[in-house]
């Protein structure tokens, strides 16, 4: 089966592309893909440890089983919104 993986922010810069298609064995999980990406792009290690994961635009846990055609995105820590709200969260 094939899934589409998209990269944003620091992950996009490390991987050097916006997206790619991965061919996986049936029953592959998000955690399996994480491991695959770390083999392919070792520099992702520190940021991957702090990233969440979304499948088809919803947050999911690592044990989630992927289906053909899924869109997978690893979500690095977010700093959006504005600078002021940084103060509120501290």
């Amino acid at each position, binding site marked *: 089966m094939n899934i589409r993986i998209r990269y944003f*922010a620091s992950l996009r810069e490390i991987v050097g592309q916006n997206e790619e298609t991965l061919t996986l064995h049936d029953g592959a999980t998000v955690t399996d893909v994480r491991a695959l990406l770390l083999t392919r792009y070792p520099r992702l290690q520190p940021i991957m440890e702090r990233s969440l994961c979304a499948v088809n635009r919803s947050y999911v846990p690592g044990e989630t089983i992927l289906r053909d055609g899924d869109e997978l995105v690893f979500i690095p820590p977010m*700093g959006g*919104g504005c600078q002021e709200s940084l103060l509120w969260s501290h």
Partner: protein
Amino acid sequence: MEPLIQLTREPLNREALVAAVSHPSVGGIVIFEGVVRDNARNKQVRYLEYDVYAEMAEQQIRTIIAEAQRRWGVERVAVAHRFGRLEIGEASVIIVVATPHRAEALEACRYIIDTLKTTVPIWKKEVATDGEEWVEG
């Protein structure tokens, strides 16, 4: 009204957002506007670069607004977030909440910006005089 959600590369238009939530039944309008500051953590910031996972961000913002509606009954909300390169002083995010009375609008607006920061996939890169980095909120 249906919540107004904008994710755009273009400069944000505060007046248009306020007009979108205005209504004769409204007694108070709260606006939160986040702007690009020239300094952060003792660095001199030159400009910011925002990246967004637009399809998911819109969905997450919709969820946040729905929760604000459930908690405070606010019915007239607009949220706009800009992405791409933003210069010092430009608005990165504008939230407008209009309600019959002020208390609900103030609380809902605070909730929306605080939650947006933690759950909406929008990232910010600070480009400073001595280098650049993706900020982790």
